[in-house]
């Protein structure tokens, strides 16, 4: 349950600077004395088989800052349950010390000061070290490496190379299988070309050919590792043609299709699988529900909603594992398989502290190679920020506040809309905003920043529609993004209200007047899923705003009030 509150995302950023008593107590050196590569990787091995999971890397080759959400509400049965626990509640729930490395990695508490102490996280060269060490410790023949997708999109270099940079890096890691979501936004031809060249399986149990209604992708990979027969079933993001442009992949239909998963689980067991794994891009709540309805899955490696949990959530005997995003974490799941079934397990969510884990030299060289043609452009500074820039949160993020302000000013609009994506890295106060930072928040294949008119009634429909995608009490009806971000307009939202009646008090911030359902408003936005959308690329709009502005300072965002 969440209480009524005046909702101020920016206030959280402020408190992390002013501190809760923790700020400044941790020097970088002190923090790192407690952190070692061996310490991060140490785990008492269990059983004979190890699953290694990475997901939602969003093309982040280099170490990044990524602030986890301070607001991530659950409705219905999942209210107050992980991953819908944030901040101090999260620390309490998992008994994590405030100010500790895990507090920094897993929550938004004291983010700025802890970021300065502990440094950036991730980096595919560090991820490579973690994976190599697990393979050395467990024996490569006993390890299955799985990539949950959203790997090929999310950076300047990925957009420039249509994912080729990430494909080269991932190939070097030798995963056994992947599934996808944003991969599909490169369009049918590019996806087919890329998948045909992959030296490992691209799985999508839930992707059908639209014309003949036949499965369009492999659904299951059968492996033998650690003397154990393992079935990996792949599930792509079910709402790819809805949340992203359908016209780019007109021949493919998706959907949850849980009956297909159930069928593949049965088939896998009949074929002798002792362990059944679902490599999923469903999102956490969808997978939790699915685990309660489809019997026989030992482990669901979930993705899409970018949650990082220090231990699996158990649904019956199914482990639901959430491995975070952006290369911040690598999940290791050890399984003891005896007499054809899992008898014991152990888990470690390994936080990839980039200053602590040694980069893998070969991978570091490869990353340098794929980035070399773009390094000068990536490092180009556009402005400086006084505020912490981040995206995650159900209703607002400062990065989107900045994008909305750029849309309002550069496109001369009354209202700005920015999609509630969950990818996009963070920039610390006082730091320069580089081309790389900007593109981490908007690199995509449909970037046109439109300028259009919408009636007040249409604007309400848009907000209600997105709110239901986020807060429908049945997870199968959720799409897994956050609320569309709004500039120039405020509103109140009751997440627990019924579909179509969550939004109220829509107000023009400039005048304080209520939004008139019958009046047309000038609206600027980006990332429309409609074909033929016209306008400059969003990164050009924001770059123009940034170079003109010089220093970004954002007022507190008080435009969204959470009621109920």
């Amino acid at each position, binding site marked *: 349950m969440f209480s009524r509150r005046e909702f101020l995302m920016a206030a959280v950023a402020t408190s992390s600077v002013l501190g809760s008593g923790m700020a400044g107590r941790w020097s970088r050196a002190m923090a790192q004395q407690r952190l070692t590569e061996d310490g991060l990787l140490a785990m008492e091995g269990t059983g004979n088989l190890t699953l290694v999971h990475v997901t939602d890397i969003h093309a982040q080759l280099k170490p990044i800052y990524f602030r986890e959400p301070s607001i991530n509400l659950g409705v219905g049965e999942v209210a107050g349950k992980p991953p819908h626990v944030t901040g101090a509640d999260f620390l309490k729930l998992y008994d994590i010390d405030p100010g500790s490395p895990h507090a920094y990695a897993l929550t938004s508490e004291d983010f700025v000061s802890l970021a300065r102490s502990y440094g950036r996280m991730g980096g595919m060269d560090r991820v490579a070290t973690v994976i190599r060490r697990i393979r050395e410790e467990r024996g490569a023949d006993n390890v299955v490496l799985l990539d949950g997708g959203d790997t090929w999109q999310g950076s300047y270099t990925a957009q420039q190379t249509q994912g080729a940079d990430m494909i080269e890096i991932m190939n070097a890691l030798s995963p056994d299988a992947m599934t996808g*979501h944003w991969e599909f936004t490169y369009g049918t031809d590019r996806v087919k070309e890329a998948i045909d060249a992959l030296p490992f399986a691209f799985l999508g149990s839930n992707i059908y050919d639209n014309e003949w209604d036949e499965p369009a992708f492999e659904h299951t990979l059968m492996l033998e590792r650690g003397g154990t027969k393992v079935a990996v079933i792949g599930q792509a993001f079910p709402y790819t043609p809805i*949340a992203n442009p359908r016209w780019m992949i007109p021949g493919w239909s998706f959907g949850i299709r849980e009956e297909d998963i159930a069928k593949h689980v049965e088939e896998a067991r009949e074929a002798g699988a002792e362990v059944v794994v679902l490599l999923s891009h469903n999102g956490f709540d969808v997978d939790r529900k699915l685990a309660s309805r489809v019997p026989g899955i030992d482990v669901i490696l979930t993705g899409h909603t970018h949650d990082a949990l220090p231990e699996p959530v158990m649904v019956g005997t199914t482990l639901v594992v959430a491995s975070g995003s952006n290369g911040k974490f690598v999940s290791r799941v050890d399984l003891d398989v005896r007499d054809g079934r899992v008898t014991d397990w152990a888990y470690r969510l390994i936080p990839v502290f980039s200053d602590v884990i040694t980069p893998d030299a070969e991978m570091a060289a490869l990353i340098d190679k794929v980035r070399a043609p773009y390094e000068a452009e990536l490092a180009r500074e556009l402005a400086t920020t006084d505020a912490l820039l981040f995206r995650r949160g159900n209703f607002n993020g400062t990065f989107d506040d900045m994008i909305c302000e750029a849309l309002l000013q550069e496109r001369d609009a009354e209202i700005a809309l920015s999609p*509630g994506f969950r990818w996009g890295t963070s920039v610390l106060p006082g730091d320069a905003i580089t081309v790389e930072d900007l593109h981490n928040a908007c690199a995509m294949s449909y970037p046109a920043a439109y300028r259009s008119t919408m009636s007040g009634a249409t604007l309400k429909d848009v907000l209600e529609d997105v709110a239901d995608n986020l807060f429908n009490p049945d997870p199968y*009806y959720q799409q897994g*993004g956050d609320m569309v971000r709004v500039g120039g307009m405020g509103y109140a939202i009751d997440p627990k209200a019924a579909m179509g009646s969550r939004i109220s008090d829509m107000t023009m911030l400039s005048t304080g007047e209520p939004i008139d359902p019958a009046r047309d408003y000038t609206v600027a936005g980006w990332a429309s*899923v409609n074909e033929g959308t016209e306008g400059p690329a969003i990164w050009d709009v924001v770059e123009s705003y940034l170079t003109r502005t010089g220093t970004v300072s954002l007022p507190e965002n008080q435009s969204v009030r959470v009621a109920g």
Partner: protein
Amino acid sequence: MTFNRREALAVAAGALAFAVTGARIAWAAAEDTKKALMDFTGGAEPQTGRITLDAPEIAENGNTVPVSVSVESPMTAEDYVESVTILAEGNPSPAVATFHFTAMSGEAAASTRMRLAKTQNVIAVAKMSDGSVFMDTKEVKVTIGGCGG
């Protein structure tokens, strides 16, 4: 680009409550749907079970939404499914399709595509050879799309 002006979603909110009421479903439905249902069942009280309606939770394209239906039945001369009708209660005209079967059909299963004007309940009703009637319902969302990820 164009944004379609849509009906306010108040109707959909009503539909949600409707789905929760379960057995009393026929009495909560819109007038046209109720009438179509009565015409099909001849007034018999629909039961739950035996019939399975399969449709996406969220439509990828409201203009062509796949829907399939199957009914458990021995399909013998003594006991078979006579017909199955599909209704979309939020469409201007709720009737989507009616399929007729005989014992010779072997199984009572059918699939088609339908247009859905907005988020609504889709209802499938099977009439058995003994006059009993079974019903399944599923809410299908028709969204504007584009803000997930």
